[in-house]
């Protein structure tokens, strides 16, 4: 067996060249490619690679980082500290305040976005002149970069030069420094967030409304049901799926909103609009405490994951009920 298949060799310029080597390599390569192509799961490899590169690796890296003390202000190498970073966060009032603001921001922003998205979807789900044009116009806020949205709204809120205060002045109201007051800064950012993401909810909910069967509504109409009754008893239950999907995405987006807050208020005045993601950013890139920042990011990931699981569970339960 030892000599079986051994290639012939010839001497050229003092070097031994295997004339069959290239062909054999090619045939090995092509057979490997063929076997990969014939493997049912081969087509998922590129996506898996990207997933590992862009999602799994950074997540695992962040997880690892959350267990070390790695302050870029120190000459010390990272050292394992177990759960110390998590304990630090739990003991920080600032962390809990930021978490509270995040929950308020997420709850209000997601709730109002869904309500306004549903209202607009119901309006657009009926014969309207220039319906497509209106729909396109309504989608515009969603495609603008959050930083640009933040800068635009920041200018609009400006007490001296902004459009909002100009309109308030024209209506006889006093000028308000929306972003310069502790009581109004977070709410002002929420309004911006709602403006930007209402079109997103609108798109999902409108698609859902357009796919609803017409027969139940016709039957209800014949039975003399009011519009509100039809909305409450038919539209809402049948729209449970799209509403849950829109809720899931909105909660995830709102929970992680950074650009808009960073640009509009920087978390201020004081810390009145500092959310968890802003706090994690500051720990990482102002305090340079990478371990604590990673721990804060991981806590956010856990919270969003738990919430997503709850939504998915509700979705599954409602599907099995149907």
């Amino acid at each position: 067996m030892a000599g079986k298949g051994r290639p012939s060799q010839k001497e050229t310029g003092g070097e031994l060249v295997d004339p069959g080597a290239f062909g054999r390599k090619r045939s090995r390569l092509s057979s490997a490619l063929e076997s990969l192509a014939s493997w049912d799961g081969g087509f998922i490899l590129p996506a898996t690679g990207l997933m590992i590169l862009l999602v799994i690796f950074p997540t695992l890296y962040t997880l690892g980082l959350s267990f070390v003390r790695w302050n870029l202000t120190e000459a010390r190498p990272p050292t394992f500290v177990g759960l110390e970073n998590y304990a630090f966060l739990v003991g920080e009032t600032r962390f809990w305040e930021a978490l509270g603001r995040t929950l308020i921001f997420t709850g209000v922003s997601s709730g109002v976005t869904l309500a306004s998205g549903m209202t607009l979807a119901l309006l657009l789900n009926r014969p309207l002149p220039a319906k497509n044009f209106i729909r396109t116009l309504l989608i515009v806020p969603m495609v603008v970069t959050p930083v640009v949205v933040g800068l635009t709204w920041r200018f609009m809120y400006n007490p001296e030069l902004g459009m909002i205060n100009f309109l308030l002045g024209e209506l006889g109201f006093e000028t308000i420094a929306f972003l310069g007051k502790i009581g109004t800064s977070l709410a002002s950012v929420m309004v911006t967030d709602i403006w930007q993401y209402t079109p997103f909810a609108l798109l999902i909910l409108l698609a859902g409304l357009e796919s609803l069967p017409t027969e139940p509504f016709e039957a209800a109409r014949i039975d003399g049901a009011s519009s509100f009754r039809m909305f409450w008893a038919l539209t809402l239950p049948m729209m449970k799926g799209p509403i849950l999907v829109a809720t899931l995405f909105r909660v995830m987006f709102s929970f992680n909103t950074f650009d808009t807050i960073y640009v509009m208020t920087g978390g201020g005045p004081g810390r009145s609009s500092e959310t968890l993601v802003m706090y994690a950013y500051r720990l990482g890139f102002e305090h340079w405490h990478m371990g604590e920042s990673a721990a804060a990011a991981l806590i956010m990931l856990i919270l969003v994951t738990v919430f997503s699981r709850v939504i998915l569970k509700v979705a599954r339960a409602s599907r099995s009920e149907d």
Partner: protein
Amino acid sequence: MNRKLARMQGVISALVFLALMLAACGAPATETGPAPEASEAPATEAPEPETPLIRRYEGETIRILMYEQVPTYSTLDRLQEFTDATGINVEYELLAESEMIRKETLDFSSHTGTYDVTNVHFWYIPQFAQAGYLEPLDDYVANLSVPEWDSMSDFVPSYLDSQRFEGGLYGLPFQGIVQILYYRTDLIDQFCGGTPPATMDDLMTCAQAITEGGAGEVFGYTDRGSADAATFMSPAGWIYAWGVNFLDENYHPQLTTPEAVAAMTHYVTLLYNYGPQGQAGMGWAEAEQAILNGVAAMHADTHDLGPDMVNPERSQFPDSISFAMPPMQDRYAQDFFASGLSINADSQHKEAAWLFVQWATAAATQAEQLAERSDFTVESILNSEAYRSQVPGGEVILQAAQVADPAYFPAIPEFGALSDVFSAAVSRMVAEGPDSVEDVMTAANAEIEELLAAAGYYD
């Protein structure tokens, strides 16, 4: 089944290999030891003695990271002069300021040595030098100076000092800015007797008079009040004016001292009572905008805003904004800023990088940019008649530079954390008014004390 299993094993092996490769690329280096020996001793590795120093590193390529701003563009526009003189190729990357800071910090800390030269703001010098990220430059100054680019004796002392940490030099000053007072001459004439305020008391009196006379349209004074890190400088400079440094010699914050409380009461009163609405949300850009638009009559800030003040395309009052020394109490208020060029300790081209740093900060190179910028770092330019006549505010900038003191800044590696705490406190005080000063300063003092204790400065 076996073939299928083997294929699966192959795929899993490939994925594990990929993951390991990625981990190897991204994992932080755990050592902050000295740079490779090959480039450790710049003076001892001179190749051929007959090769002039300026051509000694011909053919090398260096990578630099800087941030997008006028001085950077002005310097890079002349890059060919450097390449022609030295034969060194320069590849550069320009980013927004905050992004550059994040990128250089991550590059330093991961020891990848991607960039040979970077812009380093003076407040990061202690952090980066202590962590071993920056190459000490003293040996280079002593042994590798190109005479025509040697400006060591010409640098403004405060700018050069800002590049030092524990006696070592870690950068050469590329850009230097000091605080001056911008004021509207017409309003000062109308409400303040025609003379810009020289003292803090004068400033308050004048700001009050303008605000009361301005009938809600014009306000006396504006400054930084938002919660972002850049806000730190003005109020910290105010505290300095009252004769107290932010940290004492044992690194204890001084925010509860009567002087610091008085300084911040003054600062907050100015903004809360005599500043435009929404001061607590206004950073340096909005404050500048307020005086450009005629909403505010006075504004103390960095001197590089001067060209905007007299530019008819930016300012509504280009002919009536003038310049004066910053107000003083026991000392002049400060808003000193300097950004230097430093060499990455992990660079593989340190000598070539040094030549670039020396060229880019040289008086001769800066002199070519007189018509383009105002933030020069050498006295020969600041003292020149051309500077005084061409640069808006030129006549007071040198005077302000001579009283500038980087010591108003807590130059310690934990500066970023201090800035986060203090800027948020300032923003809150400005939002709530002067009555809140004592409580907020006490809380900020305690928070900073806790941060520095955790960093090991004291128990």
